[in-house]
């Protein structure tokens, strides 16, 4: 059945939409936790205690909460890197690779200009990080635009190339005698400032600003309008004179650039150096979050927060409950399952 309700009153839509989206996601996550509880119960653990551990370790203390935000930083940004191209129906599975290349470009800046002051060096590194990701994304975007290769496949395949390039650079070009699998530490000027005496870096706020920009561009600007038009009907948009190829390349590259920025943020804000295989699947996690949220900015914020709670809570569960860390993947999988099942699941109860 075609759902056409709810589009009539525009004015009151915004508030309602925010609240209803939030409630819906929270309900879904609750269901995921119930499923997860059953699994814990079967394996002889106390699910209530486990949940208590997860939440008290993450949301119960200022330190725990700050660690959630630290974990949230890269996946929030990579989720945006996937969400933007998804608006024109391009599937960017390559955020992981773009993140690596972005980090490498930023590292080059940090290692080449160690004497620059921070207020120049940091923006330069951000620019380089963005550029790196964009360059990496340009390959699938261009191949797609000339009708040669599907961007999903090529961006995915490039993911396994990127870490090898990083490895090559670290072991060769940026070889640091004191370190085995990483470059020399960045100078202080090349590190993103951290706040409140925690590990929350400027990167988190960069993520929030990007999210706000993403939302505003999609909603208010001419480009957002054209992007939405392409996403809804590419053929008609082309006939309407919207330059489809240019959008395909540009939007995909900007997406890649954002993922590259995530790499820069992690190298500069989290590690302060470039390590081989430093990404803990952030690109893929961002992909997951973006699709869970349906590319919706509020959804991205909520889902990346929830996933971060689960990820950082999982660390503790390993200690207190003696379950392997992999168990947390079960919870993530349940979340995914429930969210993807939402169309039939929650709409019927509404009607």
């Amino acid at each position: 059945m075609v759902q056409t309700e709810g589009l009539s009153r525009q004015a009151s839509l915004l508030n309602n939409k925010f609240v209803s989206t939030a409630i819906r996601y929270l309900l879904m996550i609750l269901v995921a936790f119930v499923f997860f509880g059953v699994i814990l119960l079967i394996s002889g653990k106390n699910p209530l205690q486990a949940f208590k551990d997860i939440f008290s370790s993450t949301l119960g203390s200022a330190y725990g909460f700050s660690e959630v935000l630290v974990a949230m930083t890269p996946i929030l940004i990579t989720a945006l890197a996937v969400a933007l191209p998804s608006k024109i129906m391009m599937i960017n599975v390559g955020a992981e690779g773009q993140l690596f290349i972005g980090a490498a470009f930023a590292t080059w800046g940090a290692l080449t200009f160690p004497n620059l002051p921070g207020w120049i060096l940091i923006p330069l590194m951000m620019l380089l990080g963005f550029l790196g990701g964009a360059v990496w994304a340009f390959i699938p975007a261009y191949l797609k635009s000339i009708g040669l290769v599907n961007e999903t496949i090529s961006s995915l395949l490039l993911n396994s190339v990127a870490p090898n390039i990083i490895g090559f650079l670290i072991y060769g070009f940026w070889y640091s005698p004191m370190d085995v699998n990483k470059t020399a530490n960045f100078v202080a000027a090349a590190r993103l400032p951290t706040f409140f005496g925690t590990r929350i870096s400027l990167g988190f706020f960069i993520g929030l600003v990007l999210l706000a920009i993403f939302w505003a561009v999609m909603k208010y600007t001419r480009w957002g309008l054209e992007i939405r038009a392409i996403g809804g009907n590419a053929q008609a948009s082309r006939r309407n004179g919207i330059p489809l190829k240019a959008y395909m390349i540009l939007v995909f590259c900007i997406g890649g650039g954002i993922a590259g920025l995530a790499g820069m943020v992690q190298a500069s804000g989290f590690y302060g150096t470039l390590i081989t295989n430093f990404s803990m699947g952030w690109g893929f996690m961002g992909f997951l979050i973006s699709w869970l949220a349906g590319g919706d900015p509020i959804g991205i914020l909520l889902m990346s927060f929830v996933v971060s709670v689960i990820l950082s809570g999982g660390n503790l569960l390993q200690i207190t409950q003696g379950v392997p860390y992999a168990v947390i993947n079960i919870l993530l999988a349940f979340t995914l399952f429930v969210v993807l099942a939402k169309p039939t699941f929650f709409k019927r109860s509404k009607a």
Partner: protein
Amino acid sequence: MTRSATNTQQPLLSLQGITKSFPGVRANDAIDLDIFRSEVHALLGENGAGKSTLMKILYGFYHADSGKIFREGQLVQIQSPADARNLQIGMVFQEFNLIPAFTVSENIALFLPDLKAVLHPREIDAKVKEISDRYELHVDPHALVSRLCIGEQQKVEIIKLLLSNSRVLILDEPTRVLAPHEVKALFGVLSKLRQDGYAIILITHKLNEVLECADRITVLRKGRVAGSLLRKDASEGKLIELMFEKSLAKLKTKKRALVQKSAQVFLHLDHASTKGEGTSVALKDICLDVFPGEIVGVAGVSGNGQRELGDLVLGMERCTGGKKYLLGRDATRWSIGKIREQGLAFIPENPLQMAVTPWMPVIENMALTRTRHYAKWGGLGMNWRKLADETRESFARFGFSVPSFYSPARSLSGGNLQRMTIAREMAFDPRFILASYLTSGLDVQSTLAARQALIDARAKGTGILLISEDLEELFSLSDRIVVMYEGQIVGSFKPEETNVYQVGFLMTGSKVEHGAN
């Protein structure tokens, strides 16, 4: 007008008080409708009168807000098309639901309610053959559907319904896509089906068809039943009276603007060719001029390269040979955006697919062809007020009623969508209009308005390329008619130098001497 048709027989289907609202419109308002066995029941009405909505409710595609459906006196619930099929109700949509890569019998087999796990192709072929012989629905069961013409595909759809034991057949504007002789054949099939006790519901807005084949006629107007009468009580005048509240204005055919051949030609195609990729037709060696202030009509049976010709002019199809000139400049490689900037309006044959983004609100769709014009602060915002004003003005200019700006485009009926496209494309005074099937899906009133718009534009010196299958339209509007067949221009005439038969012959590929260019 009260319902004059009375019948002592119990209706097979009875719809009572069906009401359905969409955001901003009440598509059906307390509609009563009785369907009898062995009758062709025509559902007549303007675009947006609620015909399709009512039938989609009956077929379980939409849910009515209120109202009841009875089958042989018993209340039934139709929640889905599957329910409808269980009640032996079948529907042929305007867009067919066939799988092009499958053969005819495979497509039919997929639809059978009692399809076995192991297929018996021969059995199915036999069934298909039996039905097609009885009702003269001849199609080769082994042919791929992608090879069939539209008329044959429609036959397949009908066979599908008959084999799945449907007793009520709903046909949504079945003649829209058919050539005249195919329409005749379809009506023949319908009358045979009627003899065998089938109930047929025919959705249409063509009066002559209704009078030709219907037994009972229900006229809808603005979501309500305007009247229901038997064929013997109906006349053209009476039906028109029911369909429209006011009488129709006549087309003001002003004196034709003199084409100044000395004026700069707007469009000049010089032996242009395209490569037909996928399902598209390859254009071969097209030479065509459109001068300011003339209407060039393109006649042809659909699928002979008209869509590709439009796309070639627009810049959607790449020119693989020859040249394209706009205003004397070589535009062979120009982007669509640049071509549109020259003042080209494009009214495509299928607006939902080719002109709008269906889920976006009407008002946003209105901006899409000229986003730059409506942008403010260099694109950081959109000037919605200006857009709304200009949109309202444009609708008013054609006397079209303004749809709700915030409904998604896909919730508009076909006719309203076409009106929206016309209003959008003509909002600025275009220098060139490329119109494909301008009046398809439009009711009589809007058809007049759209044609009048073309004539007015011509008077202002606009060049117009009008692609159509409606020869009457082409002959009454065009200053020149070219005929397309299999991607080539096979004839070019002044309307007064030729006649419908000559053009008709050329359209179907018969060899007749070419007229003067």
